[in-house]
């Protein structure tokens, strides 16, 4: 299965990952090979399929009671000031991909 570099670039942009031209070329080749390999799932018969549910049949829940939370830890953020996460300005609305 060949995936065009434009598609890999689009997906990488959706995933918020920048790629230089060399990385894009390598990634295009490798992602194409991986998708070609997993494409054998196409032949899985979907009729009578039961959905898979991982984990315990019933998720245990803890009692819904208020408990002291202790002192909140210091944020590990690269930029944090006065209780606020500092980030660059939000770009154009059409800038997310």
């Amino acid at each position, binding site marked *: 299965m060949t*995936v065009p570099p434009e598609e*890999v670039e689009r*997906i*990488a*942009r*959706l*995933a*918020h*990952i*920048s*790629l230089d031209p060399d*990385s894009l070329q*390598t*990634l295009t080749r*490798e*992602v194409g*090979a*991986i*998708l070609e*390999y*997993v*494409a*054998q*799932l*196409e032949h*899985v018969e*979907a009729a009578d*399929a*039961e*959905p*898979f549910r*991982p*984990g*315990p049949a*019933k*998720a*245990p*829940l*803890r009692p819904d009671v208020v408990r002291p939370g202790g002192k909140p*830890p*210091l*944020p*590990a*953020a*690269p*930029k944090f000031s006065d209780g606020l*996460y500092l*980030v*660059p*300005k*939000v*770009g154009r609305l059409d*800038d*997310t991909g």
Partner: protein
Amino acid sequence: MTTAYEAAQLAAARIEAAESSGLNATIAFDPEVLLRQGREVDARTTPSRLGVGGLPLAVKDNICTVEYDTTCGSRILENYRSPYEATAVSRLKAAGGMVACKSNLDEFAMGSSSEHSAFGRVRHPVDAERVPGGSSGGSAALVAAGAVDAALGSDTGGSVRQPAAFCGVVGLKPTYGRVSRYGLIAFGSSLDQIGVIAASVQQAAAVLEVISGRDERDSTCADVDPIDISLDRQDLDGIVVGLPAEYFPSDLDPVTRKACDRAVDAMRRAGAVTRDVSLPHARLAVPCYYVIAPAEASANLARYDGVRYGARVTGQEGGEGVDDLAAMYRATRGAGFGAEVRRRIVVGTHVLSSGYYEAYYTKAQIARGRITRDFTAVFDGGVDVLFTPTTPTTAFKAGELLGDPVAMYLGDVFVCAANLAGIPAISVPIGRANGLPIGGQLMAPVFAEQTLLNVAQVMERVVDGDHELR
């Protein structure tokens, strides 16, 4: 009787010696931190639990600790210090265990060779030109080198068992839900499980006893008591060992096959009855895994964006100003993630994207259900444990598979199905070829660790794991 301090001293010296030899199995290690824990354990008035009291353990660097940073082997979490520790780590410390060091791994546990670490590749303890397996390669190499007797790893698609097999030690992946994932940095949430790498089955069982059991901080952790394991079995009388045909293909490496045949013979002599069985959907395990795991990874790793944790890249990206939020995200994640992580995020984003979801993700979930039901049918049919090779080959050379991700993924062919089905599995050494270890894998029904570990312990005793095969 050795004190915890003396055990800490010994481990510190051995870790230093292993690292001086170029193993590169640790990401963080400070002998003073270890010795301090030894003094604290000795100073306690309450007795430590047998087997773990005074035990120094290496902890894979995707498991949160307060003594050291938790980097996941990634630049994006370089210098990240968790404000809390994993439940498994807290329980080990409460039982008298000590965090000896943080062990090196494939970045975010994605890999089968421990070559994908931002802090350099881990060397195989027998042959430095080879890989120790992955992703818990640092933990396995440290145990194999004798630096520590036990280590914590994580197993999403074989990442405890495969490096244990490559390094000639024991690797245990418990049932999904047996051990809390609280504090294990998420990769594939429906597959991830904290596991144990140890020098012996008994040591692995002792660690599992301590780290298992319900945890209100992880709702996927089963509501069951910590397991109490009695390794009292002397033989395998009455045990039915299933041999799935799909795990012994005609092109299986001949030496691996020979090692498995020897192990099966030894188990029969110990009283086991073997039965040929079939897991008809086994061939779908690797493609299924390499859709589901990247899909879950692409969602889990969305949180690393340069805002709340770790690194933020402030450079120019494609002419875009970095004072723009989306450009900062892309620059940070592009520079902070290594090639394998980027690859998996892109694959995961693709298989979840509109137009492809049904073809890949839905089909993978259907395949997962069938793979799981194959196991259930075999176990319901009277098989107590399944025996298979852990890996198709012994440890390969560093760099050999780096340019071919699909070939690397195929190395997980015998291990990833246990994660898809959530069942417990263990790798035990069953021989060597040219000095390189070979592992044999046992798998059991969900929450049947008691049986699994008892059979493994007998197998460990009746099969010489150091026997050189030709």
